[in-house]
């Protein structure tokens, strides 16, 4: 097994998960559990493809994907934040809606290929200087620009979350919205902003699949990756840096089966396919045993904030 090419494939497989997971972490950090990831990813994937196909402009394609994810998230945000509807049900509905939307819009694109200049824009390119580093360069810096963008997102959002006033505020909104409200933070505005950010990132995660990974439109291109990302948020204990390790770990488990088959190991493929979920359960168990304050879900998650009830 060629280890470097495998690890490079792992980064690729983990990237759509990474976008969606980091987006969902921010949504959950402000207290909104959005189970609509799969739907938003598909909306982003199909919209990115359709825009890329129609305009032959890679930047518009990416913006279209982000916007589509945000529109999905906006519907969710309006129902759960403004109307204070049930978050789980709304998220599930968003998944069903997004899947249908992608089939509907995508039906006229099945088997079509993106224009050359779009695929070239998202093809693997060597990152200047950094790609020269032995091993690391081959694994991390000979990838699509979208992969580089995912690194940038993680660093930027990680700093935002842990090192800035805004990060402190958004964590407060998720932990104790009443206290945040009392200290003059607009709870709704924070919630809307980060739920929409989550939608945009899911949309881009989906678009990574349709623009960079398989630039020929296919029905249901995400095939459940949105659900894996939901599990990954827990696995990463709501920490965007750990999400990187988690996304590559889950992405790696997704593809390692195909590399191991060569060695005829006596492990059924089903066991390997189960590993991501087993790992998630283990993390949940460990978290509840350790009960550390950092490693737990935002306290207000899943509950709408009623100012009158505080």
């Amino acid at each position, binding site marked *: 097994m060629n280890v470097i090419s495998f690890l490079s494939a792992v980064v690729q497989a983990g990237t759509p998960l990474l976008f969606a997971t980091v987006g969902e972490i921010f949504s959950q950090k402000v207290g909104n559990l959005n189970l609509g990831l799969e739907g938003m990813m598909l909306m982003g994937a199909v919209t990115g493809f359709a825009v890329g196909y129609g305009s032959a402009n890679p930047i518009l394609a990416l913006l279209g994907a982000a916007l589509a994810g945000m529109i999905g998230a906006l519907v969710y945000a309006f129902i759960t934040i403004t109307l204070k509807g049930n978050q789980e049900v709304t998220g599930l509905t968003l998944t069903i809606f997004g899947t249908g939307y992608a089939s509907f819009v995508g039906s006229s694109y099945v088997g079509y290929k993106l224009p050359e200049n779009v695929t070239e824009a998202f093809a693997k390119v060597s990152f200047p200087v950094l790609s020269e580093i032995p091993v690391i360069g081959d694994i991390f810096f000979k990838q699509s620009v979208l992969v580089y963008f995912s690194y940038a997102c993680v660093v930027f959002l990680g700093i935002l979350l842990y090192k800035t006033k805004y990060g402190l505020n958004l964590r407060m909104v998720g932990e104790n919205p009443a206290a945040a409200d009392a200290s003059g933070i607009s709870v709704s505005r924070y919630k809307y902003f980060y739920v929409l950010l989550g939608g945009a990132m899911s949309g881009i995660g989906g678009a990574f699949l349709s623009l960079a990974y398989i630039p020929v439109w296919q029905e249901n291109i995400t095939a459940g990756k949105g659900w894996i990302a939901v599990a990954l948020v827990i696995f990463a204990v709501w920490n965007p840096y750990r999400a990187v390790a988690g996304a590559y770990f889950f992405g790696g488990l997704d593809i390692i089966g195909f590399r191991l088959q060569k060695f005829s190991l006596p492990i059924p*493929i089903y066991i390997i396919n189960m590993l991501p979920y087993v790992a998630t359960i283990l993390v949940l168990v460990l978290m509840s045993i350790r009960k550390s304050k950092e490693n737990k879900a935002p306290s207000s998650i899943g509950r709408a904030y009623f100012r009158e009830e505080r």
Partner: protein
Amino acid sequence: MKKFGILFLALIMVATMALGCATDGESDGGSEEQIVAGFIYVGPTNDGGYTTAHDNGRLYMEEQLGDAVRSIYKENVPEDKGEVVKVIREMVDQGANIIFATSFGHMDGLIEAAAEFPEVKFAHCSGYQTAENATNYFGRMYQARYLSGIVAGMKTETDKIAYVAAFPIPEVIRGINAFTLGAKSVNPDVEVHVRWTNTWYDPASEKAAAEALLDEGCDVTAQHQDSTATMVAAEEAGAYSIGYNVSSEEAVPKAYMTAPLWNWGAYYLTAVEQVIDGTWTNTPYWGGMDEGVISLDEMTELAPQGAAEKVAEVEAKIISGEFDVFNGPIYNQAGEEVVNEGDSMTDEEMLGFDWFVQGVVGDIPESN
């Protein structure tokens, strides 16, 4: 304002009724004894693969028979007995004389409904049960797979061919074996490396499996999968590919050489004609290249030189019956002669394939 709304709705209603009458009139005018053929699909008609192939067959049949037939279809019918029976009742209500169910899991529902509607004919794709008024049908896809193996065997320079496969079931194993025999017939050193994905359709997994094989040095890919992802991986790696189900030259112009194809139209036309003539019987149908149900797509410029001639030569022998893919001697992976010289495998043996021929690199998981 409200009145306008009502007026508008009323207008729409009148318009739809008028349209409805118009279409009714048209079909009534065709022939008094118009046959109605119903099709039950497992996926959407635009899946770009399996169901698209069936739907193209339906359209072909309709085009050939003109006014003598009217076809109806239902997409996304789950492989669930109750659902299938419900859909069939609807179709019989609409006057269906013959109903085709296109997926393996539709079998139980179809057999149950066949007992309920003895005057209607039923045909089920890829199954094994029959009844007085119900049969099954499938195609000898392995013949076209053998031919595509010839193309791949001539093309490969590393003598390693990737084969991304869905499930370790006889249909898929038969295809891999036929492909390998075809490749070895022109290139005895060739190895066919198999990866199981355990899914008919999951583009990302299919691509990951193909990438693993390409990394191991394969330079031609083949697939028993419903998406083009394997071929996309080949194109990116500068390798070449054999598709499946439908022609994919548009999607992967830098990799696509050819593909074994389904032409269900040939069967649907015959079956419906038999219903019209009253000669329909419940004899199971397993058609091959001689009947046109299976074919190899026209080769692109990427196919190796001389492949078209070689394929045409073997194809002619298959069609004439002079040659069969599973003619002995055939050796298994351990090098034992399983089918002796002069013998050939029976249909039952082929339908129960659970071993690989020599030249295949990979295992058949025991769980199946």
